[in-house]
């Protein structure tokens, strides 16, 4: 049986060769002391305050950028600090111009999967039905030149899923994803996991991380400030328990502040967010009781389902306060 490496990326104290030059200040490394472990069949969403940082991190992971300090092991192979070669085990997507414009989507994917040993007709059926299943049936026979760059990127991701590469690096943090494409990527990640491949994607879209990723890593000022599962991230950092929507949220906030001393109340976009101050699990029933006691009947009360967006904002806020 073929040996499938368990550890796909191991980074220990990695620092980038690139520096930020800020006027009057000491130059700062773009990335410093990065420790990260990515295992087989995990889907990682790399987010951060700087697009350049996250793009560079993925470039180092794909072995196309040198690094200065530390150790980086890629698919159980040590990466030489100055060597810039994309290994055959890595499918790197750094742009959307990998598609041939004289083909349509299905033709291109058949071309990309040509090395596959599956019967051509069966392969064509599998690819075609997969495109439809991930919600991109409306693009299945569209000429490639008519696609947007984001659509092209997703098609390239499908090609990567059918390749021999164990690790897919989807390094397009500037791209703007709509719901259809987020859903398509999310469904593709299930397919990628089934094939025991690992996907690492760079994005600042929290919804994409929430829907598609099993793990996330967050960078800020060149440092990794979180790495772990998306679920843990949401539960640990999104402290908003209840969201109240009403016209009179401001007066409601004043009254509820007195009734809920263990909670923090914040008005955001016309909604009143009730967040816990501690890391303990709160009882939504108590909050509901206190709202009723206040004498208000809000238009809507919603128990927050814990989002990556809220967790991300909270994490960044905590780090801003520390600095």
């Amino acid at each position, binding site marked *: 049986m073929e040996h499938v490496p368990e550890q796909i990326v191991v980074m220990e104290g990695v620092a980038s060769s690139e520096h930020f030059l800020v006027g009057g200040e000491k130059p700062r490394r773009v990335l410093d002391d990065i420790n990260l472990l990515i295992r087989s069949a995990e889907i990682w969403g790399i987010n951060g305050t700087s697009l350049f940082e996250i793009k560079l991190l993925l470039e180092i992971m794909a072995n196309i950028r040198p690094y200065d300090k530390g150790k980086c092991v890629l698919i159980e192979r040590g990466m030489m600090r100055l060597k810039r070669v994309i290994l055959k085990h890595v499918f790197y997507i750094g742009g959307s111009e990998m598609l041939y414009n004289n083909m*349509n989507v*299905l033709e291109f994917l058949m071309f990309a999967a040509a090395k596959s040993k599956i*019967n051509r*007709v*069966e392969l*064509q*059926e599998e690819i*075609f039905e997969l495109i*439809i299943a991930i919600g991109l*049936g*409306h*693009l*299945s*026979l*569209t*000429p490639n030149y*008519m696609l947007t760059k984001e659509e092209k990127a997703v098609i390239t991701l499908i090609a990567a899923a059918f390749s021999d590469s164990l690790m897919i690096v989807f390094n397009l943090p500037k791209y703007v994803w709509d719901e259809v494409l987020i859903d398509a990527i999310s469904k593709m990640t299930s397919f990628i996991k089934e094939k025991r491949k690992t996907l690492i994607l760079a994005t600042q879209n929290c919804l994409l991380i929430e829907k598609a990723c099993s793990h996330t890593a967050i960078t800020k000022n060149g440092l990794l400030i979180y790495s772990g599962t998306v679920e843990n991230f949401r539960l640990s950092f999104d402290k908003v328990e209840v969201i109240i929507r009403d016209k009179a949220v401001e007066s409601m906030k004043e009254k509820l502040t007195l009734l809920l001393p263990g909670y923090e109340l914040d008005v955001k976009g016309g909604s009143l967010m009730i967040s816990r101050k501690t890391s303990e699990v709160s009882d939504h029933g108590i909050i509901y009781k206190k709202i009723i006691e206040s004498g208000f009947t809000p238009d809507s009360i919603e128990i927050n389902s814990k989002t990556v967006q809220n967790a991300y904002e909270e994490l960044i806020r905590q780090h801003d306060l520390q600095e």
Partner: protein
Amino acid sequence: MTPTRYTTQEQIEAMRQEILHEKEKLAGISSGKAPSESRLPHGRRALKTVSGAAFLALCLLLVWSIISIQITKGRGGIPNVLGFQVFAVESGSMEPTLEVGTMIVSRIPKDPGNLKVNQIVTFRTLSNAIVTHRIIEVINNNGSKAYRTKGDNPINSPDQDLLTPNRVIGVFFAKIPF
């Protein structure tokens, strides 16, 4: 037809039908029915058999030629296929009939002692060089034949040495046009 931005449901269904059709065809072949084969008319089937045999013969000839060329080359001889040899003209002595760089095909003569005037022959000179010139005279010398040869180029004079039949390699057969 101008391609559209989005694939329609009709196009998707048509593609599905096409794939299904291909799958059925494939299933027919793998189960040994070979529907397309059995429906071939008798004449076409015969033609297919003949062309198959011809192709096989051609492949065998090619393999045999490669082997024979290698063997002959190994022995220091001039390679030939079915008695035909290919030479490249390296000098202008036969211009304008054969220009420099022309590829010619020569046939090994059945009887080198019975060649005629005007035939172009490829032969070894006494200094062992290979030359292609025209026979301009057949000389009978006490029962044994010899040939006087000359290049077609008007500036050439007849070759000094008479050509004896044992040094004849081939008789010009054709010029390869390119």
